[in-house]
């Protein structure tokens, strides 16, 4: 069976810097895959390359066997790829409601259908419903994160990519965001999750890649990786660091 998403030997460079160095990953349909690694490992670059805003130097990317080369970012949204970037990038001068509606730009739907979809997002994040008429720039960080996720969901993605969704959020807001991610996983959305908070990621993902210097260091099921202490090795340089930090 062809995997839903297949990245084969992808190379991304920024000038002389290699952000991705022949990285290969895959995700099956409905699978939740975490990408874990330190700052600058290339996780965000990988998501941006899949979304189509950062070009591949070499290598290939396939979605359901279809080559993504030459597909513009907006076309990839139409193919079912949605990105929630690390910086969230809600449209600050659009209302919360308009931010959701714009997420459905690629779908040929009647206004009534789009509004019904927006209502589903409001049910998922009731906080957004209270704020629907506010300019998104006036929302709190957590609300903006919910809005960025909601906006991505309005495209009805088959592959949802989340870049550090818990970054800078209060624990209670992180809980809400992760509850939503778990709900999406249970609905069968394929999820690619970038996290520095490995414990959080492991709580929802099926499988994880440990990434360092633009390459996959290790790959496996979440339980296996955490049992082996590989995450601490990648993130902190030695195996017991995580334990020391919690002491």
């Amino acid at each position, binding site marked *: 069976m062809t995997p839903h998403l297949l990245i084969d030997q992808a190379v991304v460079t920024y000038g002389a810097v290699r952000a991705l160095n022949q990285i290969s990953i895959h995700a099956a349909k409905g699978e939740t895959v975490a990408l874990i690694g330190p700052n600058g490992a290339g996780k965000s670059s990988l998501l941006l390359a899949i979304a189509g*805003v950062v070009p591949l130097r070499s290598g290939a990317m396939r979605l359901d066997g279809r080559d993504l080369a030459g597909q513009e*970012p*907006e076309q990839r949204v139409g193919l079912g790829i949605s990105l929630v970037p690390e910086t969230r990038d809600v449209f600050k001068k659009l209302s919360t409601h308009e931010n959701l509606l714009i997420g459905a730009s690629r779908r040929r739907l009647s206004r009534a259908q789009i509004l019904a979809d927006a209502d589903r997002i409001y049910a998922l994040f009731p906080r957004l419903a209270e704020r629907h008429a506010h300019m998104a720039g006036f929302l709190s960080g957590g609300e903006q994160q919910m809005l960025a996720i909601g906006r*991505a969901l309005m495209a009805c993605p088959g592959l949802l990519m989340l870049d550090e969704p818990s970054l800078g959020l209060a624990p209670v807001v992180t809980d809400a965001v992760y509850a939503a991610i778990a709900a999406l996983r249970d609905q069968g959305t394929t999820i690619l999750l970038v996290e520095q908070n490995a414990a959080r990621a492991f709580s929802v993902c099926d499988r994880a890649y440990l990434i360092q210097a633009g390459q996959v260091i290790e790959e496996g099921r979440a339980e296996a990786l955490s049992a082996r202490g590989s995450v601490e090795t990648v993130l902190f340089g030695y195996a017991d660091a995580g334990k020391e930090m919690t002491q």
Partner: protein
Amino acid sequence: MSFLQMLIDAASVGGLYALTAIGIGLIFGVIGLVNFAYGEYIMVGAYVLLLSAGLYWPFAICAVLIFVVLFALASDFLVFRQVRRAPPETLMIVSFGLSFMIQHVWVVMFGSLTRTVNFLPAINHSVEIGGLRIAGVSLLQIAATVLLTTVLALFINYTRIGYQMRAVSENPRMARLVGVNSNRVIAVAFAISAVLAVTVTVLFVAQTGSMTPFFGVSLTMIGFVATVIGGMGSLPGCALGGFLVGTVTTILQMVLPPHLQPFREAFVFTSVILMLLVRPQGLIAVRSAWERV
């Protein structure tokens, strides 16, 4: 001449400048391009009116509308889209180049001498309202300005393409990442700016009846100045700036002694410089939907 009479003159001249300023400000707001070729959209339309002289006037206006909208879309598709990611100063120089090129192609085709056309002479008749003699074209200018700015504001604030346009303006990369076809949105912005240009063309030619391949330049300069005064990128600011320049021009026309009249523009631009020294961000600092970083 009464104060009210002057006010109407200021509003009609200002309306024309406001439409020009909005046409320039809209494109600047969406893609950060200061489009100096905007005056040529106005100018080429005038020559379409010249060529379609003799046609029943609604057909002539339709011909101008179709030609200028296609002309503006072609300038975007063939020129500006090719340099979409270039820095703003490059975009500006490219638009300068395009502007000169069009002017000189038009000199080759039509010569550089003034051509005249008698388009809709009826609207220059004056009507008398409450003791004031008002040229029909003045009323049309005021009406067209009010109508077009209202429709444009509704369009930008309440339609799907409108909020997509605001999104492209704020964050072009993220707009594409949520699936907005930014090239189409930008093309719509060019088409709208062309419709504004056509309005200016029709009113201007009906009023003056004359044209040269270079007459768009001074209008662009005034429109550009009006956008700067209003605060680059703010559409209400553009409209306000246009009306302000129109008012200053009209007042100067009245108060300047005859031997200083030829230097009217110098006084207009001096007042602009003074205004920018006092308030460099423009009258309406862009915190509106059209802010650019």
